[in-house]
C-alpha cells in the first residue's frame, strides 16, 4: 500500500465526521471572534475610562491652578455669579468662611482657649472621633453665639428707620444678619471691626458693589493689596468675608480663587463710606 492509496482512502471519510470537524473549526473561530470582541470592548472601555480620568484630572489640575478647587461642588461659574447676585442668600454656601467665622467662634467660646481646630498639634493625631465631633459641635455653638452677638451689635446701631448695617446690602442682604468692616491695616494691628450706621446712600453704594459683575480668576487679576474687609454673618453663624482690594476688586471668602471687578467710581464711593 502506497501513501497515495492511503491518501485516497482518506477521501472516503464520513461526511458527518468532516462536518463535525468543520463545525469545531467554525465554533473555534466564533469563540476567537467573541474573545476578540470582548477584548475590543474592554479595550474601548479602558480607553474611555482613561480618557475621562485624564480629562477629570486635567480639569481638577486647572481648577486647582485657578484656585477654585475649594469652590462649591455645585459648579464654579454659576456659584460665583449666584453668590454675588442672589437675592435670598444661598443655601448652597456650604463652605464656611474659615478665618472670620473661626475667629469669632473662638472669641465667644473662651477667651484665650484654643479652638478645636486650633488644637491641631502633634497630639491632635491621637484624638478620637468622638472628640472631633465634640469639637465640631462646640465650634457650631460658638458660631451661633457669634452670630447672636453680631446681631445684638447690629440692633444697637439701628437708626430710627429700624434698619441696621446689614441692610446696607439692600436686595443682596439675603440671610445675612450682620455686617461689620475693618481696614486691612487695623485688622493687622489687632483693631476691632466696625459696625457701620445704616444710610440710604450707603445702601446704594454697597448693594451695588455686591450685586455682581465681571468675575476674574485671582491669578489673572492685578488686585493689589487688600484695603478693607467686610464681614457678613449669616443666621447660622456662618461668616463670609469680603475683601476690597486697592485696584477695585472684591473677593469673597466663600468663593475662593476669583474676584469681581468693580468700577473706579464704585470703589471710591466704598472707600469714602468706610472711611
Amino acid at each position, binding site marked *: *500500500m*502506497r*501513501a*497515495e*492509496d*492511503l*491518501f*485516497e*482512502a*482518506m*477521501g*472516503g*471519510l*464520513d*461526511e*458527518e*465526521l*468532516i*462536518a463535525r*470537524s*468543520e463545525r*469545531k*473549526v467554525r465554533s*473555534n*473561530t466564533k469563540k*476567537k471572534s467573541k474573545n476578540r470582541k470582548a477584548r475590543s470592548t474592554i479595550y474601548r472601555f479602558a480607553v474611555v475610562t482613561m480618557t475621562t480620568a485624564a480629562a477629570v484630572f486635567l480639569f481638577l489640575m486647572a481648577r486647582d491652578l485657578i484656585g477654585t478647587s475649594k469652590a462649591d461642588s455645585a459648579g464654579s461659574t454659576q456659584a460665583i455669579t449666584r453668590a454675588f447676585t442672589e437675592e435670598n442668600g444661598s443655601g448652597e454656601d456650604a463652605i464656611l468662611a474659615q478665618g472670620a467665622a473661626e475667629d469669632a467662634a473662638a472669641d465667644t467660646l473662651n477667651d484665650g482657649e484654643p479652638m478645636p481646630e486650633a488644637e491641631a498639634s502633634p497630639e491632635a493625631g491621637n484624638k478620637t472621633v468622638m472628640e472631633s465631633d465634640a469639637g465640631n459641635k462646640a465650634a457650631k455653638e460658638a458660631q451661633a453665639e457669634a452670630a447672636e452677638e453680631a446681631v445684638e451689635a447690629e440692633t444697637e446701631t439701628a437708626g430710627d428707620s429700624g434698619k441696621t448695617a446689614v441692610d446696607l446690602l439692600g436686595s443682596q442682604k439675603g440671610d445675612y444678619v450682620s455686617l461689620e468692616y475693618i481696614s486691612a491695616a487695623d485688622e493687622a494691628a489687632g483693631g476691632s471691626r466696625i459696625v457701620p450706621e445704616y444710610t440710604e446712600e450707603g445702601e446704594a453704594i454697597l448693594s451695588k458693589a455686591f450685586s455682581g459683575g465681571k468675575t476674574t480668576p485671582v491669578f489673572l487679576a492685578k488686585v493689589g493689596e487688600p484695603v478693607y474687609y467686610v464681614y457678613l454673618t449669616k443666621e447660622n453663624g456662618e461668616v463670609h468675608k469680603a475683601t476690597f482690594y486697592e485696584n477695585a476688586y472684591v473677593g469673597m471668602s466663600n468663593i475662593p480663587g476669583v474676584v469681581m471687578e468693580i468700577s473706579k467710581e464704585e470703589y471710591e464711593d466704598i472707600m469714602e463710606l468706610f472711611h
Partner: protein
Amino acid sequence: MEDTAIIDLYWKRDERAIVETDHKYGKYCHTVAYNVLSDHEDSQECVNDTWLRAWNSMPPQRPSVLRAFLAKITRNLAFDRYRARGAAKRGNGVMEAVLEELAECADTSGSWNAEEAYAAKELKEAINRFAESLPDRERNLFIRRYFFAEDIADIAQRYQMTENNVTVNLSRTRKKLRKYLSEGGFIG
C-alpha cells in the same frame, strides 16, 4: 440561500442550483482543490468538475451536509488530477509533504492491493473507524492535514497552536494509524 433550498434546486433539476452552489461554496471548494494541486487554474477546473459531479449525484443523493459533501468531491477530484500529472509537474508543495508523512503508515511489502475494490472499501472504513476513535482535537488535526491537505502553519493558526505542537500531534496520530492499520492487516 440555505443548503436545503440548494439541494432542492438540484432535485428539481434547476440550473440555478449550480449558480447558488458556486456563490456559496465556490471559494471554499477552490481552497480545498488548491491545497492538493497548488495551482489556481487546475483548482478552478476542478471546482467546475465538482459542480458537474454534484449535478449528477443529486438526485439520487441528498447530502445531510452539503459543504462536506462538496468538499469530499472536490478533494477527490483534485487528487485524481494530481495523480494524473507527471511526477515533474507535481512540484514540491504541501501535497508532497503530506504524502511523505503518510508514507510512514504505508507499506509496499504488504499483500494489500489497492486495485481491488473490496480492499479499498475496507481501508476507507478502517480509516473512518480510526478517525472516529480519535479525541476531538487530534481528529480535527488529522482531518485538516490528511483530508484537506492543509499546511501545518495554517492548521496551527486555525487552532491557535504552535507549528511544533501540530507536528508532534500529527506524528503521534500517524504512529497510532500505523499500529491500527497493522492490526487490521492492511500493512505488514
